[in-house]
């Protein structure tokens, strides 16, 4: 029995988009915490900590997101947590976001001139306080455009959660397509929905970057390069 592709299907897909958004938010919040930790380890004094963080980034950026999802999904099952697609997707995307955000923010931290560290040191602040009170607040400004840019990449990445069976926008499209057998209409609509979610983010990322450029902060370029 083939169903018609009607307003009901359109509505079903629009509603499914909220799971895409929710998964993106969860992964972004988790990735912000993880990324901050990774960025701070990357500029730590200890060579071992710096090397460990660099290896983490290298491995997560050098392997497919799909494999990361599979390993978390099948791995958590082996560890006895059961195969939960939602939790696995959230965890895998958090680890993925931590690596990329960590690398982006490292670039931003290192774009802050050395004299800022030295000035803070002259005020007798320890390494952590130099970072927290002097460097991070300045790095935050140049970090915003590439971070918003990465958010687009993360949002698109959530589509892979459909492959381990989490029902977000792309998985909902498969269901609609199975019922209506109208693949072109279904996937074109889904592409439009993703575009509606991503495009404003891409635009604002670009606008923020131009504003920083105009203000003559060349470091924005450095940060943007870390985002590719």
């Amino acid at each position: 029995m083939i169903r018609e592709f009607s307003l009901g299907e359109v509505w079903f897909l629009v509603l499914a988009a909220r799971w895409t958004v929710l998964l993106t938010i969860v992964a972004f919040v988790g990735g912000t915490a993880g990324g901050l930790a990774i960025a701070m380890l990357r500029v730590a004094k200890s060579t071992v900590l710096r090397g460990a963080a660099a290896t983490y980034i290298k491995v997560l950026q050098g392997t497919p997101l799909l494999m990361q999802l599979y390993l978390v999904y099948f791995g958590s099952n082996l560890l006895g947590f059961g195969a939960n697609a939602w939790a696995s997707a959230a965890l895998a995307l958090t680890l993925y976001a931590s690596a990329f955000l960590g690398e982006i923010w490292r670039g931003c931290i290192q774009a802050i001139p050395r004299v800022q560290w030295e000035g803070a040191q002259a005020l007798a602040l320890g390494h952590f306080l130099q970072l927290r009170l002097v460097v991070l607040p300045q790095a935050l400004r140049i970090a915003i455009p590439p971070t918003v840019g990465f958010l687009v990449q993360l949002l698109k990445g959530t589509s892979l959660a459909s492959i381990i069976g989490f029902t977000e926008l792309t998985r909902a499209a498969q269901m609609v397509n199975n019922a209506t057998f109208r693949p072109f209409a279904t996937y074109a609509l889904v592409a439009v929905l993703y575009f509606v979610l991503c495009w404003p983010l891409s635009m604002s990322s670009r606008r923020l970057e131009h504003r920083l450029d105009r203000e003559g902060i060349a470091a924005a370029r450095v940060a943007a390069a870390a985002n590719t």
Partner: protein
Amino acid sequence: MSYVFQFGTVWRELDHLLLGAWLTLRLSALAMVFGLAVGVAGAQAKASSSRLLRGMVQCYVEAIRNTPFLVQLLLIYLGLPSLGLRLTPDQAALLAMVVNLGAYATEIVRAGIEAVPNGQIEAGRALGLKPWHIFRFVVLMPALRTVFPALGSQFILVMLASSVVSVISAEELTAVTDTIVARNFRSFEFYFVITGIYLALSLGFQALFAAVDHALFARWADRA
């Protein structure tokens, strides 16, 4: 944990995995070559005087960069047949990768072309070079030299994204592994090992691009 890991099974299937890695390598290499060609054409179109052409390229770039690769792949593989274009999984996978990479490469190459100083082009004209020679030697080569590192990382991203084409059963490393896992249920061991293979591939590509960069562009001396 009562699970017993059996990596011996993976060892026995190693030749299948290596074949899969070869297929991934070939698919990615083809996508890189064609994707770069699309990128150069797109960047040239963006520099054209026709507003319509520029707008069309801009729409293509924005549409691709703001939608997931998986959706692009499914739209090409499942959606295009209803428009009369039926592709095999392998063809659909390659087309999706080229279309995807082409959009990113367009932006990257365009940035490189814009970085070529106008005076350089005028100098080319003053020397009486033909427009095609100016584009090739005065604009494109220096532009590619400037953006080669960015292109290289985009190439690696496409190679990693190729694992996604396993969902339409195009032949590559992940799809080969899916087939083996469906038979012996050793999912974790197999995906763990091929994750290592992917890591090796991306490190290999990184080294290769660094060598190519050096071999092709070292004689151009200092990069800005």
